[in-house]
């Protein structure tokens, strides 16, 4: 719980993501600036290092937020095709596309520089990450393409060359979020899966939450905010993986 775990949000063909932030003592958000909020893993906007990063289908746009009321466009970079999500973690950006995960360095925040990429099966793919690992979900289907639906664990210790370390088959994985040694993965109309990632390379299924169609999550301390079919659901995260529904906002 002391570790600050950020999620990367990545996405590929659709929106897919459940995202997450940190489990630190203060509820920080997707940016490294204390005054930003936190998005889900399906996001195309993220903040880090006092900059706003935006991805559209092909490009990454960088805006300085030095003056938060008047962002300044610093430039744009061609990333690839079918870009869907962006997630920031510390001094890196993780960008998800329909066929790959790209990693960019923010050593110079005004000018992100490509570090590496992992090409994966054609599918929808949100991502979250921490210092050494990136968790990516790939969801196949008529819209996403491909024939693999799974949670994939990449070793990103050497970001120039991410290596696939494990693959957990799932029914319909969407967005995801990390909280300490727990990984929350939206599973569409199959609910939400909670994995124990004490051994980070081998997620162990601890719990399945049904009753809602889950698309994305944001985890803040002991609260889980989920984008569900038709709105949002708020859950309290308690000891022993107990998860209690606090409210549903669907009208």
């Amino acid at each position, binding site marked *: 719980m002391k570790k600050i775990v950020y999620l990367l949000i990545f996405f590929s*063909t*659709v*929106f897919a993501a459940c995202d997450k932030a940190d489990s630190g003592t203060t509820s920080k*958000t*997707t*940016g490294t*600036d204390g*005054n*930003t*909020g*936190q*998005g*889900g893993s*399906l*996001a*195309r*906007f*993220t*903040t880090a290092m006092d900059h*706003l990063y*935006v991805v*559209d*289908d092909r*490009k990454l*746009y960088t*805006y300085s*937020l030095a003056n*938060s*009321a*008047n*962002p300044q*466009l610093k430039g*744009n970079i061609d990333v690839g095709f*079918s870009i*869907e999500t962006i997630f920031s973690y510390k001094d890196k950006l993780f960008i998800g596309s*329909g066929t790959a995960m790209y990693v960019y360095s923010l050593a110079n925040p005004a000018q992100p520089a490509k570090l590496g990429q992992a090409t994966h099966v054609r599918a929808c793919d949100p991502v979250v990450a921490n210092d050494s690992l990136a968790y990516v979900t790939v969801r196949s*289907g*008529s*819209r*996403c*393409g491909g024939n693999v639906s799974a949670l994939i664990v990449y070793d990103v210790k050497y970001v120039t060359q991410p290596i696939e370390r494990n693959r957990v088959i799932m029914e319909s994985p969407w967005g995801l979020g990390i909280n300490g040694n727990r990984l929350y993965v939206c599973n569409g109309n199959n609910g939400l899966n909670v994995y124990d990632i004490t051994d980070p390379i081998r997620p162990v299924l601890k719990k399945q939450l049904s009753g809602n169609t889950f698309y*994305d999550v*944001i985890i*803040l301390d002991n*609260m889980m*905010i989920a*984008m*569900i*079919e*038709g*709105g*949002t659901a*708020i859950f*309290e995260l308690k000891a022993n993986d107990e998860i209690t529904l*606090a*409210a549903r*906002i*669907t*009208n």
Partner: protein
Amino acid sequence: MTKRPVAWVLLPVLLVALASCDPFGRHGRDPEPVPESPKEVDGWAPVYNKDEANKQIKSMEPRTIDKGGKIYVKGDTLYQVESGKGIHVIVLKQPSNPQKVAFINVLGAQEIAIKDNMMYVNNMNDLVVLDITDVRAVKIADRITSVFHLVDPAHPPGTGYYECVDASKGEVVGWEQKTLSYPKCRN
């Protein structure tokens, strides 16, 4: 001489293979508006706007969540995009009793981020900065026009099937995911 027999063996195989394709769905029982168009498939549908008044960015009374899009949290406030239409503002001071406090009208909205009291949101393909110090009376602080391409009125933001655009329903301000039946358009 040695290659001929191979061709003769392959011919019937090819014929059988072709026959089993039934590429035009003639043997199907259900009507198929487009060959190979599935009866049920997830895809995209346009979000339309017909009301000129919606083009104005402003705070409105809270409203019903229709579809519910991407989510963003800052402090004890949750922001949920209503794809193509705007942002629901919901206060979570008491998680068991969330309070909708406003709806911010932003045509084409898909994405948001917040720093301090400034919200960054796409208004179609413009980046708009809103001062949300009072979410019930937001003010436009800045607008950067036509940089990114987040909303394409002609095509959905991904590959696959989509509901064809019907211009009589208004201007396309976004796309939402939807289960489609025999869709006629494909990206």
